[in-house]
Structures are given as structure tokens and as C-alpha cells.
């Protein structure tokens, strides 16, 4: 075996404990508090997904499922989100579905934990409950060409 200095042993113990502790914290937040990442949901054909009648992305926008509960289908294309404005009331819970018809995009909705890559052929899904009135910016955060920085939408939460 190799000789390890006493202080180094303490440091090794501290390192393992720190990393294990952080992993436990992340695990509790993910599976105890349910702060989830986007996962596998479904594939679509990017050539036809935006055709009305073929998929909900044919007519993007809000769908009310029950009072205060919505699905939002958002289409990402260079360089716009459709719809580019969504109006909600405080307390609404929205499940967002994003897909792209051309290149890779990304979405971060400011002030929320919604942060996803948007890939052609894939549907990205996450849910958020809007607890406060105000405006959120829907930012495209993956480079998608010359107009990338102009690609954004707004969510307005009314009291």
C-alpha cells in the first residue's frame, strides 16, 4: 500500500464527504422537492410538425386543461417563438412544450426553473406554476444564426 500523510487523509475524507454531501443535496432537491429536468417525451417529424391537424404545434398557443391549468405549445424557428406573447393569471400552472422546425434553439424563461434545449425532431417539456404578477422573458439561449439575439418572447402574468 502507499503511505498517505495524516493531513492528506483528513483532506481525502473531507473531499469525499463534501462531494457525497452535494450529491445527496441534489438528489433530495430532484426527487424530494421534484425540481425536475426535461426528460424523454416524444419525437416528431420536423418537416410536418407545424402543419395544422398533424400535431398540436400546428396551432401553437395555450390550451386550457382545467381552470388555472394550461398546456402551452410553442414553436421555435429562426428567429422567433410562436406565439411570441402569452398572457396568464397569477396561480396558473403551465406545462410548456417546445419543438423546432429548423435548427437547434434553447429556451430560458427568466425568473423560473424552465431551461431547455429545443431540438428539431424532439419535444422538450417542463411545468411551472406562476406565483407572482409580472413579466418574464422567454430567451433563445442557443446560437441559431445571424438573428439569434433577436429571438425572444414574453410571458405576462396578470394579478
Amino acid at each position, binding site marked *: *500500500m*502507499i*503511505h*498517505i*500523510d495524516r*493531513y*492528506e487523509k483528513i*483532506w*481525502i475524507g473531507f*473531499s*469525499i464527504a463534501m*462531494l457525497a454531501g*452535494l*450529491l445527496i443535496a*441534489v*438528489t433530495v*432537491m*430532484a426527487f424530494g422537492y421534484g*425540481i*425536475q*429536468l*426535461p*426528460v*424523454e*417525451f416524444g*419525437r416528431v*417529424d*420536423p*418537416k410536418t410538425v407545424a402543419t395544422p391537424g398533424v400535431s398540436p404545434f400546428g396551432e401553437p398557443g395555450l390550451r386550457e386543461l382545467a381552470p388555472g391549468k394550461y398546456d402551452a405549445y410553442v414553436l421555435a424557428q*429562426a428567429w422567433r417563438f410562436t406565439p411570441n406573447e402569452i398572457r396568464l393569471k397569477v396561480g396558473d400552472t403551465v406545462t410548456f412544450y417546445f419543438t423546432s422546425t*429548423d*435548427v*437547434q434553439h*434553447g429556451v*430560458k424563461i427568466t*425568473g423560473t*426553473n*424552465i*431551461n*431547455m*434545449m*429545443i*431540438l*428539431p*425532431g*424532439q*419535444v*422538450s417539456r417542463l411545468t411551472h406554476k406562476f406565483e407572482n404578477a409580472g413579466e418574464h*422573458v422567454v*430567451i*433563445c*439561449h*442557443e*446560437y441559431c*444564426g*445571424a*438573428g*439569434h*439575439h433577436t429571438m*425572444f418572447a414574453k410571458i405576462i402574468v396578470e394579478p
Partner: protein
Amino acid sequence: MTLSFARENRIASWHFIIAFVALAIGLLFGPLQVWEHTGIKELNFYPYLRAIGIQSYYQGLTLHGVLNALVFTTFFITGFLTFATVRSLQKPLTIPALSWAALIIMVVGLLMAAVPILLNQATVLFTFYPPLKANPFFYIGLTLVVVGSWVTGWSLFATYLAWRKENPGVQTPLIALGSLITMALWQLCTLGVAVEMLTMLIPWSLGLIPGLDPLLARTFFWFTGHPLVYFWLLPAYISWYGMVPKMAGGKLFSEPLARLAFWLFLLISTPLGFHHQYVDPGIPAIWKYIHAGLTFAVFFPSMLTAFNVMASLEIGGRARGGTGLFGWIFRLPWNEPSFAAQTLAMIIFAFGGISGLTNASYNLNLVTHNTMWVPGHFHMTVGTAVALTFMALMYWMLPMLTGKPLRWPKLALAQGWTWFIGMALMANGMHILGLRYELPRRSLIGALPYFNPEWTPFLIESAIGGTILLISSILFFTVMIGTLVSKERLATAVEMPVAEAYEPGPAPKWLDSWRPWLAGALALVVVGYGPMMVQLIAQSQWNVPGPAGRLW
């Protein structure tokens, strides 16, 4: 008997020349980016760059990323590992023609990739995510650069095998061991990007296949993309473990644990690419979680390094007459440019490690993914721990290669400090902008329709940091060129600093044995990637053609 490494010096010198020319051009775009980000119209110089053929911010950003993160690093590392391995083994290359062939392949690849970028035909950034489609020569060129770097590795492996035959039972010297492990890791992990290039990007950009699967392409890319950072980092560790303690007047505190750290990187580095895909659709939570755990595990050898290198510096400080709990720190050779710059790089790296751990923390990544936090993080890691260490290595390698003393050592000393201060300011601003204000990365910030004046103080902090980094870059190249054109000759030859072990005696056999570690690394890749890779390939639909025209 003194060996002559004249041939190896020539090979390494060509690598270094190309690496630093690439760095010089790549660095120029950095300040242009932070100045533009301020939103102050007078500080946006991109409109003037059209006169020299740079059409947009994004073309400049592609040059910045490709030249600094891909070309500079790869050329420097292949040169440095050749330089260090032959000296560490005290054996010249057995098949030098292989190393020359490698260099030629890399240069041909570089030229093939550079032309489309300069012609604005490959403005796809250094991650080249499809289906943004670049000119095929961009993909073919980058592939050749990687193939050339493989061949450099084969030349080193051949030299090692010959050395092993002549020296049965002798422990591999640490610097050679670290170099060979770095090359082995590179051969394993670049299989991902090789598959992406050969089965998807090259045939698709040539029009041989109509479409591809972007998720599968990302998965192959990140198979390589994260271990890539250890390919950058391990040469810096070779210097920190194997050379810096000697410069500090000390010894390597625990040589066996240094060896263990290198082996652990070979073992764990590859099967953790999904931590770059935490927010990708199409990948189950359990696989993202497994890769989170493995990413935490690969942090461990860096923790070992932090203790071991610091303890080695303490030995040096005390040997130089330092006393007390912290007194030894002030006795370290802070007036030596190479030592000072590398030690400052280590300090920045500690903070870079912390912000990286944040990114790696599974759902915490929802807060930071693709925000300005991320370039803030990697400018402290690859942009300082790696790049500043590589510059610092030139402060003794250039005198060694040219036989000329380093010109203006005071300027070289100032270079390390200005890089440290500039990067601290820039990275601090970028981390705050990403975390608190959720600014996106890789975007024309000054032109954002939702630009918020609250960002301005931190954008200006970053811009000041970037300006100091520009000054630091100018100092570096002034010292390099000044030394090259100098007529002075060194009175005595410079030697590669090689740190002795604090406790002599060979490490146990299992720390000098390739089979178990290579087998373990392969097994971990199969377990950590195999099932998901098979599923993604089986489900893949190659039906994404990409946009009809260029989007830039």
C-alpha cells in the same frame, strides 16, 4: 552522456509556433466581444471589421472559440507532450517520421478548416451543433486535426514501448506517465466526435445523406466534449505536479497520489458527457443522474491535486527559509515569471472548479445552463488554469528551445498578474450576469431587444477585465517576440525542471500498470454510455435536413 533532442525540439517548436499564432488571432476577438456586450455603441467595433472580411460578431465568436479552445490547445499539447515525454524517459522518439506525419496532417486539417471560417462559410461556433450546416471542409479539416493528434500519440506510445523493453521493471517517470495517460484518454474520448464527423456531419454536408439526428449528434459530441477538458487540463497538471515543485525549490509531496490522480482521470473522464445535456429532451433522468454522480467522482482527483501541489509548494517555501503557518507563501519565488503565473492560474482554477461543480449539480444546472455563467466558468478553467499555465511554460521552454535568455522578465511577471486580475474581474462579472440577471451566453448582448440597464455595471466590469486581458496578451507576445529576435545567448543551457519525490522509492506496481486502468476505463464507458447509446441509435431518425439556406 547527454542525449540530443534536437529533432524533438524542432517538432515541438513547430507545434508551439502554430499554437501561439492561433492564440494571437483568437485572443483579439475576446475584447471585441466584451466591449460590444456593454451596449455602448462606440465600443462595438464589428462594423469596421467587415473591411477585413469579418462579417459578424458570430463569425468572430467562431474564430475565438475554434482558434483558442480547439487549435491553440491541441497544437500546444501535442507539442508539449512530445517535448516532455522524451526528456522524462531520456529517450528520443523511436519513429520520428510518425511525429512529422502527425504534424503535417494537423496543419493540412487546420488550413482546410480555417479557409471556410474566414470566408464566413462556417459560422457555427466551436460546438458546430447540427443542423446548422458549415462548409464540408470545416468538418473534414477539424477531423484531420484530431487524426493528426492521434498519430502524435502513437509516436509517443511507440517510444514508450521501446523504453519499456530497454528498462524492464523500472518505474515510468511521472512526467512521462502523465503525458501518456493524457494521450490515451484522448484516443478513447475522441471516438465520439469521430463518429459524429464520419457518419453524420461530413456525409451530410457533402449531400451524401439527406438528414441527421441532432440529439444523437449532440450525444456523440459530448462523449468527446467533456473529457476534452481533461485533455486540456492534464498537461497543466503535469507541470503543476512534475515541474512547479522544483521551481519552488521543493519536492513533490506525494508522488504515488499524483500517479493515482492521473489514473483516475483516465478511468472516470469519459462516461459523464450527459452532464452537458441535462436540459436536452430525449434522455431519461436516470442517465443524467448517473452522469452527475460520475462528474462528482471526477472532481475527486482534482481535490487530491489541490492538496498535493499546495503541500509541495509549502516544502519549497520552507526550504527557502519560510516559517510559520503562512510565512512560507511569501518565500516562494514570486519573482520568477513562470512560477508566479502558474501559481496564480491555480488560484483562479479553484474558483473555476467551484463554478463547474455548480454546473455539474444536476437540476441546479437549470439555473446556469447556457447563461453567461458558463463562459465565466470556462474562462477560469481552460482560459486561465490551462491557457495561463501554457503561456507560463513558454517562459522557460522558449529559452531552452532557442538558447536565448527570456527578454524582459519583468514584463513576463506583469503578464501573469494582469491575466490574473483581468480574468478575476471578467469572470466575476460574467458569473453575476448569468446567475442574477440570466443573461444568455453566445449572444450579441448589446443588441438584445430586452437589454436591461441594470446589467451595465457588471458588463462594464467584464469589459474592464477583458481590456486588462488584452494588455496581458500584448505583454506575452512582446516577451515572446523580444526573446526570439534577441541576439543574447544563454551562458548555461536551461534544463526541464523535474520535481523529485519527497519520499523516494517506487510507487506500488498497480500505479505503473496500464492494463487494469485501461480495462476499467473501457468498462466504465460501456456501462455509463452503452445502454443509452444503443437506445438512442436504435430510436434515431435521420430526418432533419437543416435549413435550406445559410442562417448567418
